[in-house]
């Protein structure tokens, strides 16, 4: 709501700079979206009389005038050609500052001195009209300040009205609010007009759609002077409030709307056939609006029609047919209330929001109609010379009455956390228009019907609190009533992220929705796959599918980084993945019921379907890592780290110590020979591997090594619960063993076999070298194992030899391993 301050001063007196005003509004009521200035910010505008006017000798498009400013004559260069000798014009004097901050100086324009400037309506902030110099009538005395007639500069504050306060969409509401903040009085203009115009009852009024139209009033104003534009003061205010001045009748209705917050419509009575009908739109009905567009109606849209055709889409916009125009002499004025939600729906359906619909959609107070009708009638007859009908046609079957809301002071103090005196609470509520009764600690307020947001005690407490000032509330902290903390799972996830960052990776957060090609390019669109969860209304096809794995978003990011010159890198993300999970057979209805109402219908005496099974989507938290290209550049003393299976696997082992790896079973998007399924005990924890070259190519990563893994976040154990194991202070005996086995023998199996021997002396076994080449036969490899033995007492060579022999035998039996000499 744009509030011109000079207009606001008509309703109340205040002596505040605009900054303080903005601050007060911000701290006690609504946010201020902006402050605008129009016209002349500083300086003087005086009435001048043109003495001579002619072309500029050195410029085709300029003119030059001699202007009498009341006793002295000055020369002014002008861009507009409309002044003439004898015309009275506003002249802004040199030294003045315009609203946009430009300072006017005595200047030479194309060689001629120009003293100040003759002003257009736009330059004065009256309207957007910049077609010529504003010509003043004879009531403006030469040499006198123009400000004696109207303000030459204006400050407008733009209030960001919250949806619960439709009363602030009118100047009177804003004035009441400011008066309540300042604890002062405000005044409402007293409408006055002459009655005796043509009777409204020459027309009929029939409200068919009562549910969509709580109130409808119609009154006729006849004998209007045709063709007139509204007086300057009215146009000026309408313009400053952000609307376009059109003609006297329309401007008067808009002015009354800006003042009361109540939209008003005027029909040209001569074009209305028989009477006004308020009804729903009809199938196939079309209406051509003022903006020239033709709209199709439906039966959820409310139409104001006459007996023959639709005239207005109620609350939104009128048709050309019965609109008031320059020739209108007889008008029917509509002041009505429509169902807010319905207006909102219509305006959304049509993609058409207007000053009127924006107000109606919040739900207006039907009782405002009376004053608004009086006020607009008064304005109309005042600015367009009409006479108002004695009678009003009305439809208001269920008048809204005010209601009483109790207020306990104890409750106010509890909710606000500050002292509140009964007298002060009562005074604050009264300043908002409430009639406050009750006594002592128990008050009650009769709420005016224009404050539909004040229904409950808590609503009143909010009003009292904000008017006293939220800055008066002391800061306090509640005492801790329970031990807080992260759950073990949350601690674990946090640690996973920390560990991955400490391994040198960067945490990414990517969108969980992507294009259909994601699953195709990942070779996840086969028959056996579970499919994906679809977004019904994606922003574009690029966001149609919910990810079944975090991988594709990170691959896209890696490719993007490559485009911008990265030589590689490591990314990780902890996020959700989604899979369709249709409800059990026969429970589709129950599932929908649960999703819409939160309620689960029992299947039988003790059977209730599992809520999770009705969700329709299975959601899991995963941690995903993508290593691409050069993960870490080399240095003068260290080699670079390139993406590869073992780099990724090492990270898996860091996050999930004790994991086991099953080769040959990983998803199809991985390299079949360089990948594994990761197991945490008996639970499938995820996968690790190098990307399948075909997939790499699809994601624009061809030619780069790419390795990745994804694990169930909840199964990771980067910091397993420690447990003390006793140790002995005796020397340990290290032994090494190199064996030759077939290439296909898994080293992991050999280690498992050694550990399976259950030797009590063996405290450590590791692979320290794997060799294939000229030293071993074709198709074979040499695996070098390192062992560490330790016993209760110092072991003898003989004792260790016995253990080594058992190991050699076992490896020989199980893997055909021969000791390499």
């Amino acid at each position: 709501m744009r509030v011109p301050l000079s207009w606001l001063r008509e309703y109340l007196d205040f002596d505040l700079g605009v900054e303080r005003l903005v601050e007060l509004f911000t701290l006690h009521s609504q946010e201020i979206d902006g402050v605008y200035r129009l016209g002349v910010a500083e300086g003087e505008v005086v009435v001048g009389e043109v003495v001579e006017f002619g072309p500029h000798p050195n410029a085709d498009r300029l003119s030059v005038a001699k202007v009498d400013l009341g006793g002295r004559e000055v020369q002014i260069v002008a861009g507009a050609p409309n002044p003439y000798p004898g015309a009275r014009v506003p002249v802004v004097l040199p030294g003045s500052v315009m609203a946009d901050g430009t300072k006017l100086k005595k200047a030479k324009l194309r060689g001629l001195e120009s003293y100040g400037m003759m002003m257009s309506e736009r330059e004065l902030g009256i309207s957007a009209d910049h077609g010529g110099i504003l010509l003043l009538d004879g009531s403006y005395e030469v040499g006198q300040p123009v400000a004696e007639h109207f303000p030459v500069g204006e400050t407008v504050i733009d209030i960001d009205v919250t949806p619960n306060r439709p009363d602030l969409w009118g100047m009177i509401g804003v004035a009441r609010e400011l008066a309540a903040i300042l604890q002062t009085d405000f005044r409402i203009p007293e409408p006055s007009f002459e009655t005796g115009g043509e009777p409204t009852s020459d027309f009929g009024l029939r409200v068919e759609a009562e549910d969509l139209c709580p109130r409808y009033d119609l009154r006729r104003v006849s004998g209007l002077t045709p063709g007139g534009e509204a007086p300057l003061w009215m146009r000026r205010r309408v313009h400053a409030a952000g609307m376009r001045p059109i003609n006297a009748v329309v401007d008067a209705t808009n002015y009354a709307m800006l003042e009361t917050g109540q939209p008003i419509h005027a029909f040209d009575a001569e074009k209305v056939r028989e009477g006004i009908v308020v009804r729903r739109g009809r199938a196939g009905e079309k209406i051509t609006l003022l903006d020239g567009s033709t709209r199709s109606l439906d039966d959820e849209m409310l139409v104001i029609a006459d007996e023959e055709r639709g005239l207005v889409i109620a609350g939104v916009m009128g048709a050309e047919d019965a609109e008031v125009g320059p020739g209108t002499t007889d008008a029917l004025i509509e002041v009505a209330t429509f169902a807010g939600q319905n207006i909102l729906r219509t305006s959304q359906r049509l993609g058409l929001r207007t000053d009127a619909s924006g107000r109606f959609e919040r739900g207006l107070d039907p009782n405002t109609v009376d004053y608004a009708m009086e006020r607009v009638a008064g304005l109309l007859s005042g600015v367009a010379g009409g006479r108002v009908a004695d009678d009003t046609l009305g439809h208001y079957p269920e008048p809204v009455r005010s209601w009483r809301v109790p207020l306990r002071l104890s409750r106010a103090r509890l909710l606000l956390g500050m002292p509140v005196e009964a007298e002060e609470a009562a005074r604050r509520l009264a300043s908002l228009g409430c009639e406050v009764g009750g006594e002592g600690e128990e008050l009650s307020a009769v709420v005016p019907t224009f404050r539909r947001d004040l229904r409950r005690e808590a609503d009143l407490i909010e009003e009292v609190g904000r008017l006293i000032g939220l800055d008066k509330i002391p800061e306090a902290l509640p005492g801790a009533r329970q031990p807080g903390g992260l759950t073990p799972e949350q601690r674990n996830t946090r640690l996973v992220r920390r560990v991955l960052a400490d391994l040198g990776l960067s945490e990414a957060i990517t969108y969980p929705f992507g294009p259909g090609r994601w699953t195709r390019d990942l070779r996840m669109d086969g028959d056996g796959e579970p499919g994906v969860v679809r977004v019904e209304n994606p922003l574009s096809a690029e966001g149609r599918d919910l990810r079944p794995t975090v991988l594709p978003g990170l691959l896209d990011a890696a490719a993007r980084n490559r485009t911008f010159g990265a030589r590689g890198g490591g990314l990780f993300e902890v996020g959700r993945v989604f899979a369709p999970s249709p409800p059990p057979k026969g429970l589709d209805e129950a599932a929908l019921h649960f999703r819409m109402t939160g309620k689960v219908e029992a299947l039988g005496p003790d059977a209730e379907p599992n809520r999770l099974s009705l969700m329709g989507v299975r959601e899991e938290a995963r941690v995903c890592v993508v290593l691409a290209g050069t993960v870490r550049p080399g240095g003068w003393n260290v080699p670079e780290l390139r993406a590869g299976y073992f780099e990724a696997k090492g990270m898996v082992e860091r996050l999930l110590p004790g994991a086991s790896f099953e080769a040959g079973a990983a998803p199809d998007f991985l390299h079949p020979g360089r990948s594994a399924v990761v197991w945490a005990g008996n639970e499938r924890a995820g996968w690790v591997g190098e990307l399948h070259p075909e997939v790499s190519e699809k994601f624009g990563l061809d030619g780069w090594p790419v390795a990745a893994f994804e694990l169930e976040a909840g199964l990771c154990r980067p910091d397993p619960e420690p447990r003390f194991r006793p140790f002995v202070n005796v020397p340990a005996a290290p032994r090494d063993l190199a064996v030759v086995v077939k290439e296909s023998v898994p080293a992991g199996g050999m280690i498992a076999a050694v550990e399976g021997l259950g030797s009590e002396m063996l405290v450590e076994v590791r692979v320290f070298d794997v060799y294939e080449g000229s030293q071993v036969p074709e198709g074979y490899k040499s695996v070098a194992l390192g062992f560490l033995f330790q016993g209760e007492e110092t072991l003898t060579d003989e004792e260790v030899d016995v253990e080594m022999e058992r190991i050699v035998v076992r490896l020989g039996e199980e893997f055909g391993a021969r000791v390499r000499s």
Partner: protein
Amino acid sequence: MTATDRIEELKNAALAAVRAADTTAALEELRVRYLGRSAELTEIKKSIGKLSQEERKGVGRSANLASREIEGALAARTDALAAAEREARLRKEAVDATLPGVPFPRGHLHPSQRIIDEVVDFFVGLGYGVAEGPEAETDYYNFTALGIPPGHPARTMQDTFFLDEGLVLRTHTSPVQVRTMLSQEPPVYVVCPGRTYRRDSDPTHTPMFHQIEGLAVDRGLTLGHLKGTLAAMARHVFGEDVNVRLRPSYFQFTEPSVELDVSCFRCGGSDAHCKVCKGAGWLEMLGAGMVDPDVLEEAGYDSEEYTGFAFGMGPDRMAMAKYGIPDLRLFFEGDLRFLRQF
């Protein structure tokens, strides 16, 4: 020449040789030559027994004195040479200390996640728990349970992504609060961080963003508790010196509703051209309020017995303010040039 003279001669020769020696190896040779088993001085000592009683005393003493003097000189010279040699070796071992060390590169946590961690840690310290919920949420929990039934205007304000019938991508983390209230009796102290989704995409809106909402329900909670809690949180995240202010506002699930502004931590309001606050001096930080009695009742809590406050903030925007990030879209592109700055 008497034996004593000979000893004197040997001693002087030894001392001169020691002085002249310039390696520890040469000194060892000298030790063998002058003090070793077959050295002349040793021979003289061995033969003392053959001398007369008178001679024995004089020769023995001067031989011993000479040995000791030579040993002393050897030791002193050895120490000196060893020190010099060590020094020379260390000089040779010197490296270019300005070369970079072996890299242990630090990784990077996402800026939004950093803020979330900070905020969550703060509330955990106050005894709050942390609750999470599904991102694919039911219509009921996302809307109806919060007082936004089908057809309510607020539904259209939150451009929603729809999934299967009755399912949406949650438009806020509020459903987590609902789920918490439905599963727990007061006192409730909980924060709910997470991803949220709205169908919106421009420089200042991304279709996915983060929220942290919080909820406290207990006996006797006031707007003062809300103010104190959130002011302390703001100081925790933005520094001890920031001020906060409450402004009235309007939200569906709270009454009274407020917004919390934080004084600009960069300029404190002193810079009309400040990049962080754009000269306003205040930064809009979060929306909050006392939980609407209807919402408490919907959760099965007695709204006469219990009061509560709720708040919601945008960690992405907080990160933008704190780290000076100009564009929200940067957060979700996985661009290493961006991520590596945090």
